[in-house]
Structure formats: structure tokens, C-alpha cells
């Protein structure tokens, strides 16, 4: 296991109270695997990734759990040790390519900075590597474009630059936080394709954070569905799409519009809204929006259980409620 997250809890201490942004989340990523974390805004997926990077800003704080990278707990490492890992072994790309690059430095200087921080190369060698990386991510005439400032590039180009920068030191794990959300659909596909091919080429693992199930279907090997800071369902991608078990997953899949759908019915919508993180419902956090909510759901929190190759957090699949599950 390359990365193993165990019982991670990340809190945000606000004046109004404590928000458990990530609440007892465990998962693992194998070498070379693409794991997607899917969820709505506020589900804790981005906070999970920032926790792994050690880039949480005040007032966010990891309060419990462990993050094992190659068996070593990142949470026990000093900032200095983390700096050695960040950008070198684990790197990250972000949602907003338009604002994620420093506007006052040339592209090449920003990539060279990363390379020279982690690799013992001269500036000249670092520049050569920069150009090579820009070529790898599909930037035309990379030698020239390396001299560009970020504002001279389009959003898709900038995201490619971000990827080149993230991969410049051959990381073993790439965390991609909504890498395609801010891009046009055609560019989205190109960027996903690029990530996919680079994964093969560099044999790195990818933690793909997204709210877009289309992206998941296209790119991921395995999927975690998060809701309100907790994992609701985990399964490999085929099985999740063909046999969604958790009502929330089902709701997400049903609310994707399909071109071939000619029934003329209204698109399915999950009722209600994501609960206020300061006032979580008792029991299952999804209970107040769930179509199949039972009395028990509003009282107790279901456990994450292995059922038929999936991990599901729902009483429908609990042994005590086995009858319900059979009815399905």
C-alpha cells in the first residue's frame, strides 16, 4: 500500500462551533492506482487531500488518525520533513488553473523552482527538464512557451503547466483536486486523458478529487463516495456504476442527465440540501434527504460494512436490517 489513511479526523474550530470536516475516514491507494473521491461541495473531499499534503490552513486541524505514506505516518513528521516529501514524492494540482500559478514569474521559473528544490540539478539541467516536462504534458513549442507568463496562457494550458510542475520530480502520488472543474468540456477530456496516460508512463498513483461522476467513470479505478465528511460507499468503478448500493450514490447517478433518455420525465433530484455542518442530523447524515430513510437512520449512525465487494455505510445492508436489503 502506497498511502494508507486510517480514521482521519479533521476539524475546523470556528467561533460558532467545531465542524468535523473529515470524520473518521479510512482508505488506501496502491501503487499506480487511480482512486477517485466523489462528493458534493462541503463533503470533506478537498479537506481530506489537504490533510494528506499537510497544507491545511487555520483553523483546520487534523485531530486524530494516521496518514501512512510507505508505512511512515506523515502526521508525525516535522514541517521540514514534509517539505522534502511535498512536490517530490507527493504532489498536487488544484481546481483553479487560472489562479494557481504565480502571475509574476515565468512558467519556467516556477517549474525550475520545484525541480531545484528537490533534485540536485544545475539551473541549466533543470531548465532542460522543464522543457521536457512541458513537452510531455503536450504544450506545443515548449522551449518558447516556457518563457511565457501565466496570463499569456489559456486555462487548459495552465493546467498542463500545473501538471508538468507536479510531475517534474517524478512523484509516486499525485493528488488532483478537481483538476478539470474550471475547464471547458473538451479541455476536460484532454486533461483527463493526459492524466491517464501519464499515470501509465510514470507509474504513479493518483488521488482524484471530483464532484463529477462523469470524470470518475472515465478515469478512476476505484471510487469513494463521501458525504458530510464520511465515506458512504467504496467500490471499484465498474461495480459502483452497475450496482450502486448506497441511496446517496444511487441519487447521484440518477441525477446525471442522459442524452439517450427520451422519457420526457424531469431529471431526478436528491431532495433537500446538504445539512449545515454545525447542525448535523442525528444518526446518518443523509437521513433527512434519503428516499429510503427508516426510523433507525435518524437515531444511530450506520457503520461502514463490507457488502458484496462494496463498502457501504447504510442500515439497508446491515445484517439486522437484512430483510430490507433483500427487498431491494
Amino acid at each position, binding site marked *: 500500500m502506497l498511502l494508507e489513511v486510517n480514521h482521519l479526523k479533521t476539524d475546523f474550530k470556528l467561533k460558532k462551533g467545531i465542524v468535523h470536516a473529515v470524520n473518521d475516514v479510512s482508505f488506501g491507494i496502491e501503487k499506480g492506482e487511480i482512486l477517485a473521491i466523489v462528493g458534493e461541495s462541503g463533503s470533506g473531499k478537498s479537506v481530506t487531500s489537504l490533510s494528506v499534503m499537510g497544507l491545511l490552513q487555520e483553523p483546520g486541524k487534523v485531530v486524530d488518525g494516521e496518514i501512512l505514506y510507505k508505512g511512515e505516518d506523515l502526521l508525525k513528521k516535522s514541517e521540514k520533513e514534509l*517539505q522534502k516529501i511535498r512536490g517530490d514524492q507527493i504532489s498536487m494540482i*488544484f481546481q*483553479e488553473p487560472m*489562479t*494557481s500559478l*504565480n502571475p*509574476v514569474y515565468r512558467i519556467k521559473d516556477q517549474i525550475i523552482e520545484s525541480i531545484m528544490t528537490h533534485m540536485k540539478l544545475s539551473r541549466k539541467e533543470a531548465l532542460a527538464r522543464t522543457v521536457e516536462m512541458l513537452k510531455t504534458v503536450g504544450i506545443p513549442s515548449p522551449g518558447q512557451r516556457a518563457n511565457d507568463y501565466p496570463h499569456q496562457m489559456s486555462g487548459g494550458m495552465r493546467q498542463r503547466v500545473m501538471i508538468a*510542475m*507536479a510531475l517534474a520530480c517524478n512523484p509516486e502520488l499525485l493528488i488532483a483536486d478537481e483538476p478539470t472543474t474550471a475547464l471547458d468540456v473538451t479541455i476536460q477530456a484532454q486533461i483527463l486523458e493526459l492524466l491517464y496516460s501519464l499515470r501509465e508512463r510514470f507509474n504513479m498513483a493518483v488521488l482524484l478529487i471530483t464532484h463529477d461522476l462523469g470524470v470518475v467513470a472515465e478515469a478512476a479505478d476505484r471510487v469513494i463516495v463521501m458525504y458530510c465528511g464520511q465515506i458512504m460507499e467504496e467500490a471499484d468503478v465498474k461495480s459502483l456504476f452497475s450496482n450502486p448500493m448506497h441511496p446517496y450514490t444511487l441519487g447521484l447517478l440518477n441525477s446525471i442527465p442522459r442524452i439517450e433518455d427520451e422519457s420526457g420525465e424531469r431529471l431526478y433530484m436528491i431532495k433537500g440540501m446538504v445539512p449545515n455542518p454545525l447542525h448535523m442530523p442525528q444518526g446518518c447524515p443523509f437521513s433527512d434527504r434519503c428516499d429510503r430513510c427508516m426510523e433507525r437512520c435518524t437515531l444511530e449512525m450506520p457503520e461502514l460494512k463490507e457488502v458484496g465487494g462494496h463498502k457501504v455505510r447504510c442500515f439497508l445492508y446491515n445484517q439486522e436490517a437484512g430483510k430490507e436489503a433483500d427487498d431491494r
Partner: protein
Amino acid sequence: MQMIKYMIKRILMLIPVLIGVSIIVFLIMRVFSPDPAPIVLGEHATQQSMQEWRLANGLNDPIWLQYVNYIKDAMTGNLGTSYYTKAPVTQEIFSRFPATIELAIAAIIFASLLGIFLGVVSAVKKNSIFDNGGRILALIGVSMPIFWLGILLIILFSGTLHWLPSTGRLNPLYQPTQITGFYLIDSLLTGNMNALVDALRHLVLPALALGMYSMAIITRMTRSSMLESMSQDYIRTARAKGITNRRVIRKHALRNALIPIVTVIGLQFGSLLGGAVLTETVFSWPGIGAYTVNCILKSDFPVVQGVVLLVAVVYVLVNLAVDIIYAFLDPRIKYAKKEG
């Protein structure tokens, strides 16, 4: 090339600015200032001698004609002569302006270095004891009257500790050969180290007193600008690269925060160059500020007009310099019209 075009354009724009400024100062002096004749000639002067003096100085002409004559002379570099010393205004100004420039530069250097340092520390350690300390210092800096601060500095460093001289620019014993009028430069050029050290020692207290206000303004601007830039996405990217915090702050956050900081530094410097009346008075600094105020009170029209024009030119040039620095700080700023 485009930058040079832009600079020429901006410098040409000085002309309308100077015409406007000169009209305003010309009118203000003639409409609101007391008649200079009795002040120049003394209270026992006869009506007739005063009338003759006014005629000789063209003050009986209609104001528009006086203005036209003034501009005509000014075009040839003649800004008139002082009513009192009879010396050319240009000479009067340039004998005093180097002192003002020297003081202004020393003050702005002190203000910028300390201001940016305190502002960065305040922003990085937000809400810590450093932040609160820096903010209190900034508050004191903007609210403390300069003359009072000057007197306090004199009492402490000259009166009590005897570390630094309290008045003047230089001990006359060390007077370097006059080349530029800037004592620091002149003493360097002539290799007169005693003069250099003495001039520096004279410069410390007035520069501190004068720079305190600017320092406070720069601290505040740096703090807020840094807080803004540190919350940007590219700062997170820089941290994700694994570079040290110090580098993230210096290379990424501060560099992006510099534009508003440079703007206030430029504005502050411009106003310091206009002369610092209070500081110059407290420290008997032979600069242009206190002298000008004196000339205003004595209705010495040509000198006041000359000084105001000079200050206008300096202001415009400092602002131009700031705009040019922008282009170096931020590659997105271009001073050329895009074709098409």
C-alpha cells in the same frame, strides 16, 4: 521601445500640469497674500516708494499680463528674483533643495525598510504578539505629531545620551567642497570621510522623525497587501511544491504584494520631497520646506511660485517612476496600446 514612448508621453503631459499648477499658485498668491510692498520696504515706507516698487516689479499690471510675462520669462529659465535677497529664484531653490532631497531619501529608506519588515511580520504572524506590537507601533507612528517626536528624539539622543547632534546638516569644520550640494555625495567624491560620518550622524534624527509617519503608513499597507496575497491560490501551489515557508513568503507572497506598497512609498516620497516644514524647523535643517513657508508669510511671490512648480515636477516624476516600477513588478502591466 514602447516603454520609452510611454515615458516621453508622460513627460510631455507635464506641460499641462505645470500650466495648471502655475495658474493656481499665481492666482492664490496675488488674491490671498498680503501686499508684499510694505513687507519688503518696511512699515515706514512712503506710499510713493511702495508704488514705485510695485511698478518696478510689475505688480500693477493686470493679473493676466503678469502671468503672461511670468511664463515668458519662465520659458527662458528665468523664474524671477526673490523680493528680499534679490538672488535668482533658481539659485535660492537649488541651494536648499539638496538638503531636502537628502533628508527625504534617508527618511523614505528608513520608512520602507522598517515598514515592509514590520508589515510582513505582522501579516505572517497574524494576531500574534508581533502583529499587535507592529500595529500599535504603526498607530503611534501615524498619530504622533512630528514636531513632538522630533523634540523627544533630540532630548533622548542628543540631550541625555549625547550620541547624535541635534541640529543642522553638518559641523562647519568638516564642510566638503561643494560639487553637487549633497553632502553625502560631495564628501564621498572628495574622499572626506569625516564629513561623511558627520553628515550621516546629523541625518539620523531628522530622518527618523520625518520617516515615522511614512513608516506607519507603509507598515499598514504591507500588512493588508500581504494578507491578501498570502490567501491566493498560488501560495498554496508554492507550498505544495515543498519549498520553505521563508521562500514562500519572500519570493511568492511579498513579490505579489509589492504593487500597493510601492504606490504608497512613491506617494510618501513625493510629499517628503515637497519639504518637511516641521522637521526642518525642529532640527534647523536648511531645507526647502521651512524656507518656503517663510516666503509665503513674507509674500515673496517669485520664490513661492518657483518652489510650487518644482514640487509639481517632482511629484509627476516620482509617480512616473512608480508606474515604471509597476511594469517590472508585474508582467501583466503593459504601457502600450495593443494594436487591433
